[in-house]
Protein backbone atom coordinates (compact mmCIF):
# COMPACT_ATOMS: atom_id res chain seq x y z
CA UNK A 1 0.00 0.00 0.00
CA UNK A 2 1.09 3.56 -0.59
CA UNK A 3 1.96 5.28 2.71
CA UNK A 4 0.23 8.51 1.62
CA UNK A 5 -2.95 6.62 0.71
CA UNK A 6 -2.96 4.92 4.13
CA UNK A 7 -2.55 8.25 5.92
CA UNK A 8 -5.31 9.77 3.78
CA UNK A 9 -7.67 6.86 4.50
CA UNK A 10 -7.05 7.07 8.25
CA UNK A 11 -7.47 10.83 8.21
CA UNK A 12 -10.88 10.44 6.53
CA UNK A 13 -12.06 8.03 9.24
CA UNK A 14 -10.73 10.05 12.18
CA UNK A 15 -11.53 13.58 10.96
CA UNK A 16 -15.12 13.73 12.31
CA UNK A 17 -13.80 13.02 15.82
CA UNK A 18 -10.30 14.52 15.84
CA UNK A 19 -10.69 17.19 13.18
CA UNK A 20 -8.85 16.84 9.89
CA UNK A 21 -5.66 18.55 11.00
CA UNK A 22 -5.23 16.47 14.18
CA UNK A 23 -6.29 13.28 12.39
CA UNK A 24 -3.57 13.72 9.76
CA UNK A 25 -0.95 14.90 12.28
CA UNK A 26 -1.66 11.91 14.56
CA UNK A 27 -1.44 9.39 11.73
CA UNK A 28 1.81 10.94 10.50
CA UNK A 29 3.30 11.22 14.00
CA UNK A 30 2.62 7.56 14.75
CA UNK A 31 3.82 6.63 11.27
CA UNK A 32 7.10 8.38 12.04
CA UNK A 33 7.39 6.62 15.42
CA UNK A 34 6.97 3.29 13.64
CA UNK A 35 9.65 4.40 11.17
CA UNK A 36 7.21 4.18 8.27
CA UNK A 37 8.42 6.44 5.52
CA UNK A 38 6.97 7.65 2.29
CA UNK A 39 6.59 4.91 -0.25
CA UNK A 40 5.04 1.49 0.16
CA UNK A 41 4.18 -0.10 3.51
CA UNK A 42 2.98 -3.60 4.28
CA UNK A 43 -0.45 -4.52 5.58
CA UNK A 44 1.11 -5.49 8.93
CA UNK A 45 2.76 -2.08 9.25
CA UNK A 46 -0.54 -0.37 8.44
CA UNK A 47 -2.25 -2.48 11.09
CA UNK A 48 0.42 -1.54 13.62
CA UNK A 49 -0.32 2.09 12.81
CA UNK A 50 -4.04 1.48 13.48
CA UNK A 51 -3.09 -0.08 16.82
CA UNK A 52 -0.98 2.94 17.81
CA UNK A 53 -3.74 5.38 16.89
CA UNK A 54 -6.27 3.27 18.75
CA UNK A 55 -4.30 3.45 22.00
CA UNK A 56 -4.19 7.25 21.76
CA UNK A 57 -7.88 7.53 20.96
CA UNK A 58 -8.88 5.48 24.02
CA UNK A 59 -8.01 8.35 26.38
CA UNK A 60 -10.36 10.69 24.56
CA UNK A 61 -13.31 8.50 23.56
CA UNK A 62 -13.01 5.31 25.63
CA UNK A 63 -12.08 1.78 24.62
CA UNK A 64 -15.38 0.90 22.94
CA UNK A 65 -15.60 3.92 20.65
CA UNK A 66 -11.89 3.71 19.86
CA UNK A 67 -12.33 0.06 18.88
CA UNK A 68 -15.16 1.11 16.54
CA UNK A 69 -12.91 3.70 14.91
CA UNK A 70 -10.08 1.16 14.62
CA UNK A 71 -12.53 -1.18 12.89
CA UNK A 72 -13.46 1.58 10.45
CA UNK A 73 -9.78 2.28 9.76
CA UNK A 74 -9.20 -1.40 9.02
CA UNK A 75 -12.22 -1.30 6.69
CA UNK A 76 -10.70 1.67 4.90
CA UNK A 77 -7.39 -0.21 4.58
CA UNK A 78 -9.24 -3.19 3.19
CA UNK A 79 -10.76 -0.91 0.57
CA UNK A 80 -7.19 0.08 -0.35
CA UNK A 81 -6.51 -3.61 -0.78
CA UNK A 82 -4.22 -4.06 2.17
CA UNK A 83 -5.96 -5.59 5.17
CA UNK A 84 -3.78 -8.18 6.91
Amino acid at each position, binding site marked *: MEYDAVIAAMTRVLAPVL*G*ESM*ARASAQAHGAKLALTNGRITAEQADALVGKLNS*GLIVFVGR*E*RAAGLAEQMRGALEALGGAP
Partner: protein
Amino acid sequence: MSDRRPLLVVATAALVLAALYVGRTAAGDVSLYRDFLTDATLVRGAAVCKLALLAFACVHATQTFRRLEPGNDARSPWLLLALALGGFTLGQSILSGHQLVFAKSPFPSPADALFIAAYPLLLAAFVRFGRAYRRSGLPVGKLWQHLAIAASVLVAGALVAGPLLRPVLAAPGTRLEHALNVAYPAFDLALLIPLAILVRIAWPFRGGAIFRAWALLLAGTVGMCAGDLLFAWFSMMDASHLDPLVHGSYLVAYACLAWGTRLHRDLVG
Protein backbone atom coordinates in the same frame (compact mmCIF):
# COMPACT_ATOMS: atom_id res chain seq x y z
CA MET B 1 -35.21 8.63 27.48
CA SER B 2 -32.96 11.09 25.70
CA ASP B 3 -32.19 14.21 27.72
CA ARG B 4 -31.42 16.27 24.62
CA ARG B 5 -34.78 18.05 24.57
CA PRO B 6 -34.88 19.13 28.24
CA LEU B 7 -31.28 20.34 27.93
CA LEU B 8 -32.11 22.21 24.74
CA VAL B 9 -35.10 23.89 26.39
CA VAL B 10 -33.19 24.91 29.54
CA ALA B 11 -30.10 26.05 27.61
CA THR B 12 -32.25 28.14 25.26
CA ALA B 13 -34.13 29.65 28.20
CA ALA B 14 -30.79 30.45 29.87
CA LEU B 15 -29.44 32.19 26.77
CA VAL B 16 -32.68 34.18 26.37
CA LEU B 17 -32.47 35.20 30.03
CA ALA B 18 -28.80 36.17 29.59
CA ALA B 19 -29.78 38.36 26.64
CA LEU B 20 -32.58 39.91 28.72
CA TYR B 21 -30.08 40.61 31.50
CA VAL B 22 -27.77 42.37 29.04
CA GLY B 23 -30.80 44.35 27.80
CA ARG B 24 -31.67 45.17 31.42
CA THR B 25 -28.21 46.66 31.95
CA ALA B 26 -28.25 48.57 28.68
CA ALA B 27 -31.85 49.80 28.78
CA GLY B 28 -31.99 50.76 32.45
CA ASP B 29 -35.32 51.47 34.12
CA VAL B 30 -37.69 51.07 31.16
CA SER B 31 -41.31 49.90 31.37
CA LEU B 32 -40.58 46.39 30.05
CA TYR B 33 -38.23 45.66 32.95
CA ARG B 34 -40.15 47.73 35.53
CA ASP B 35 -43.60 46.21 34.90
CA PHE B 36 -43.13 42.80 33.27
CA LEU B 37 -39.63 41.38 33.43
CA THR B 38 -38.91 42.66 36.91
CA ASP B 39 -35.67 41.87 38.73
CA ALA B 40 -37.56 39.34 40.86
CA THR B 41 -38.95 37.57 37.77
CA LEU B 42 -35.55 37.43 36.09
CA VAL B 43 -33.69 36.26 39.18
CA ARG B 44 -36.23 33.46 39.76
CA GLY B 45 -36.00 32.32 36.14
CA ALA B 46 -32.21 32.43 36.29
CA ALA B 47 -32.22 30.49 39.58
CA VAL B 48 -34.09 27.60 37.95
CA CYS B 49 -31.98 27.62 34.77
CA LYS B 50 -28.63 27.77 36.58
CA LEU B 51 -29.53 24.91 38.90
CA ALA B 52 -30.85 22.73 36.06
CA LEU B 53 -27.81 23.39 33.85
CA LEU B 54 -25.33 22.59 36.60
CA ALA B 55 -27.26 19.41 37.41
CA PHE B 56 -27.16 18.41 33.73
CA ALA B 57 -23.41 19.08 33.59
CA CYS B 58 -22.83 17.02 36.75
CA VAL B 59 -24.89 14.10 35.40
CA HIS B 60 -23.13 14.17 32.02
CA ALA B 61 -19.67 14.25 33.63
CA THR B 62 -20.63 11.36 35.90
CA GLN B 63 -21.89 9.37 32.90
CA THR B 64 -18.64 10.00 31.04
CA PHE B 65 -16.68 8.82 34.09
CA ARG B 66 -18.78 5.65 34.28
CA ARG B 67 -18.49 4.95 30.56
CA LEU B 68 -14.71 5.17 30.54
CA GLU B 69 -13.16 1.83 31.43
CA PRO B 70 -11.05 1.42 34.60
CA GLY B 71 -7.42 2.18 33.83
CA ASN B 72 -8.27 4.92 31.34
CA ASP B 73 -6.10 7.97 32.19
CA ALA B 74 -9.04 10.34 31.60
CA ARG B 75 -11.32 8.54 34.06
CA SER B 76 -10.10 10.16 37.28
CA PRO B 77 -10.26 13.73 35.88
CA TRP B 78 -13.83 13.09 34.77
CA LEU B 79 -14.65 11.92 38.30
CA LEU B 80 -13.03 15.05 39.75
CA LEU B 81 -14.96 17.22 37.29
CA ALA B 82 -18.20 15.45 38.20
CA LEU B 83 -17.51 16.01 41.91
CA ALA B 84 -16.69 19.68 41.30
CA LEU B 85 -19.89 20.14 39.30
CA GLY B 86 -21.74 18.31 42.08
CA GLY B 87 -20.38 20.86 44.57
CA PHE B 88 -21.44 23.72 42.33
CA THR B 89 -24.90 22.14 41.92
CA LEU B 90 -25.36 21.78 45.68
CA GLY B 91 -24.18 25.33 46.25
CA GLN B 92 -26.46 26.62 43.54
CA SER B 93 -29.40 24.69 45.03
CA ILE B 94 -29.00 26.72 48.23
CA LEU B 95 -28.74 29.96 46.27
CA SER B 96 -31.62 29.07 43.95
CA GLY B 97 -33.87 28.14 46.88
CA HIS B 98 -33.20 31.51 48.45
CA GLN B 99 -33.66 33.35 45.16
CA LEU B 100 -36.97 31.60 44.43
CA VAL B 101 -38.37 32.47 47.86
CA PHE B 102 -36.92 35.95 48.45
CA ALA B 103 -35.89 36.96 44.90
CA LYS B 104 -32.51 37.99 46.32
CA SER B 105 -29.00 36.50 46.18
CA PRO B 106 -27.58 36.08 49.70
CA PHE B 107 -23.87 36.77 50.15
CA PRO B 108 -22.11 35.30 52.01
CA SER B 109 -24.15 32.13 52.43
CA PRO B 110 -23.56 28.39 53.06
CA ALA B 111 -23.51 28.07 49.27
CA ASP B 112 -20.11 29.77 49.25
CA ALA B 113 -18.60 26.95 51.33
CA LEU B 114 -19.68 24.47 48.64
CA PHE B 115 -18.49 26.65 45.77
CA ILE B 116 -15.11 27.18 47.45
CA ALA B 117 -14.78 23.45 48.11
CA ALA B 118 -15.53 22.69 44.45
CA TYR B 119 -12.76 24.87 43.03
CA PRO B 120 -9.76 22.69 44.07
CA LEU B 121 -11.55 19.70 42.53
CA LEU B 122 -12.03 21.62 39.28
CA LEU B 123 -8.39 22.67 39.34
CA ALA B 124 -7.22 19.09 39.96
CA ALA B 125 -9.51 17.80 37.19
CA PHE B 126 -8.08 20.21 34.62
CA VAL B 127 -4.47 19.48 35.60
CA ARG B 128 -5.12 15.75 35.27
CA PHE B 129 -6.90 16.17 31.92
CA GLY B 130 -3.77 17.86 30.62
CA ARG B 131 -1.55 15.05 31.86
CA ALA B 132 -3.85 12.32 30.51
CA TYR B 133 -4.09 13.89 27.07
CA ARG B 134 -0.32 14.46 26.90
CA ARG B 135 0.19 10.77 27.63
CA SER B 136 -2.20 9.75 24.84
CA GLY B 137 0.58 9.95 22.28
CA LEU B 138 -1.47 12.23 20.03
CA PRO B 139 0.42 15.42 19.06
CA VAL B 140 -1.12 17.75 21.66
CA GLY B 141 2.08 19.60 22.52
CA LYS B 142 5.16 18.68 24.48
CA LEU B 143 5.58 19.01 28.25
CA TRP B 144 8.00 21.93 27.88
CA GLN B 145 5.46 23.78 25.72
CA HIS B 146 2.77 23.27 28.37
CA LEU B 147 5.18 24.40 31.09
CA ALA B 148 5.99 27.51 29.06
CA ILE B 149 2.26 28.27 28.74
CA ALA B 150 1.83 27.71 32.50
CA ALA B 151 4.74 30.05 33.28
CA SER B 152 3.38 32.75 30.93
CA VAL B 153 -0.10 32.61 32.45
CA LEU B 154 1.38 32.60 35.96
CA VAL B 155 3.37 35.75 35.23
CA ALA B 156 0.38 37.44 33.53
CA GLY B 157 -1.86 36.40 36.45
CA ALA B 158 0.60 37.76 39.02
CA LEU B 159 0.74 41.06 37.12
CA VAL B 160 -3.06 41.51 36.96
CA ALA B 161 -3.85 40.09 40.42
CA GLY B 162 -2.83 43.27 42.26
CA PRO B 163 -4.84 45.74 40.16
CA LEU B 164 -7.83 43.38 40.14
CA LEU B 165 -7.93 42.62 43.83
CA ARG B 166 -6.77 45.90 45.37
CA PRO B 167 -10.10 47.72 44.83
CA VAL B 168 -11.98 44.72 46.22
CA LEU B 169 -9.86 44.75 49.40
CA ALA B 170 -10.10 48.51 49.74
CA ALA B 171 -13.90 48.50 49.55
CA PRO B 172 -15.98 48.32 52.74
CA GLY B 173 -17.15 44.89 53.78
CA THR B 174 -16.85 42.21 56.43
CA ARG B 175 -13.77 40.03 56.76
CA LEU B 176 -15.68 37.06 55.34
CA GLU B 177 -16.90 39.07 52.35
CA HIS B 178 -13.35 40.21 51.63
CA ALA B 179 -11.99 36.69 52.03
CA LEU B 180 -14.55 35.24 49.63
CA ASN B 181 -14.19 38.03 47.11
CA VAL B 182 -10.44 37.41 47.05
CA ALA B 183 -10.74 33.61 47.13
CA TYR B 184 -12.99 33.36 44.06
CA PRO B 185 -10.80 35.43 41.71
CA ALA B 186 -7.67 33.79 43.17
CA PHE B 187 -9.03 30.34 42.32
CA ASP B 188 -10.04 31.64 38.90
CA LEU B 189 -6.52 32.92 38.23
CA ALA B 190 -5.12 29.54 39.29
CA LEU B 191 -7.66 27.81 37.03
CA LEU B 192 -6.48 29.86 34.07
CA ILE B 193 -3.16 27.96 34.08
CA PRO B 194 -4.48 24.46 33.28
CA LEU B 195 -7.24 26.10 31.25
CA ALA B 196 -4.68 27.73 28.92
CA ILE B 197 -2.88 24.40 28.56
CA LEU B 198 -6.16 22.68 27.70
CA VAL B 199 -6.88 25.36 25.09
CA ARG B 200 -3.48 24.53 23.56
CA ILE B 201 -4.36 20.85 23.63
CA ALA B 202 -7.87 21.31 22.19
CA TRP B 203 -6.98 23.82 19.46
CA PRO B 204 -5.47 21.33 16.95
CA PHE B 205 -8.69 19.27 17.19
CA ARG B 206 -10.78 22.05 15.60
CA GLY B 207 -13.30 20.74 13.12
CA GLY B 208 -13.79 17.56 15.14
CA ALA B 209 -16.25 16.43 17.80
CA ILE B 210 -13.60 16.51 20.54
CA PHE B 211 -12.95 20.19 19.83
CA ARG B 212 -16.65 21.09 19.96
CA ALA B 213 -17.04 19.44 23.36
CA TRP B 214 -13.88 20.98 24.81
CA ALA B 215 -14.48 24.42 23.31
CA LEU B 216 -17.81 24.57 25.16
CA LEU B 217 -16.34 23.16 28.37
CA LEU B 218 -13.48 25.65 28.37
CA ALA B 219 -15.74 28.55 27.34
CA GLY B 220 -18.04 27.61 30.23
CA THR B 221 -15.17 27.70 32.69
CA VAL B 222 -13.95 31.05 31.36
CA GLY B 223 -17.51 32.40 31.66
CA MET B 224 -17.63 31.19 35.25
CA CYS B 225 -14.32 32.93 36.01
CA ALA B 226 -15.68 36.12 34.42
CA GLY B 227 -18.84 35.86 36.54
CA ASP B 228 -16.77 35.46 39.72
CA LEU B 229 -14.63 38.46 38.89
CA LEU B 230 -17.61 40.65 38.01
CA PHE B 231 -19.37 39.53 41.19
CA ALA B 232 -16.34 40.36 43.36
CA TRP B 233 -16.06 43.79 41.80
CA PHE B 234 -19.71 44.74 41.68
CA SER B 235 -20.64 43.47 45.14
CA MET B 236 -17.77 45.26 46.91
CA MET B 237 -17.92 48.44 44.86
CA ASP B 238 -21.61 49.04 45.31
CA ALA B 239 -22.35 48.59 41.62
CA SER B 240 -25.45 46.47 42.08
CA HIS B 241 -26.99 47.96 38.95
CA LEU B 242 -24.48 45.81 37.06
CA ASP B 243 -25.62 42.58 38.77
CA PRO B 244 -27.51 41.54 35.61
CA LEU B 245 -24.14 41.11 33.88
CA VAL B 246 -23.06 38.68 36.61
CA HIS B 247 -26.24 36.64 36.20
CA GLY B 248 -25.82 36.73 32.41
CA SER B 249 -22.21 35.47 32.63
CA TYR B 250 -23.17 32.54 34.84
CA LEU B 251 -26.15 31.62 32.65
CA VAL B 252 -24.03 31.48 29.49
CA ALA B 253 -21.21 29.69 31.35
CA TYR B 254 -23.47 27.00 32.79
CA ALA B 255 -25.20 26.49 29.42
CA CYS B 256 -21.76 25.92 27.84
CA LEU B 257 -20.73 23.52 30.63
CA ALA B 258 -23.96 21.52 30.34
CA TRP B 259 -23.74 21.31 26.55
CA GLY B 260 -19.99 20.60 26.46
CA THR B 261 -20.24 17.76 28.97
CA ARG B 262 -23.20 16.41 27.01
CA LEU B 263 -21.24 16.42 23.72
CA HIS B 264 -18.31 14.69 25.42
CA ARG B 265 -20.55 12.07 26.99
CA ASP B 266 -21.96 11.29 23.54
CA LEU B 267 -18.41 10.97 22.20
CA VAL B 268 -17.65 8.21 24.66
CA GLY B 269 -20.58 6.14 23.51
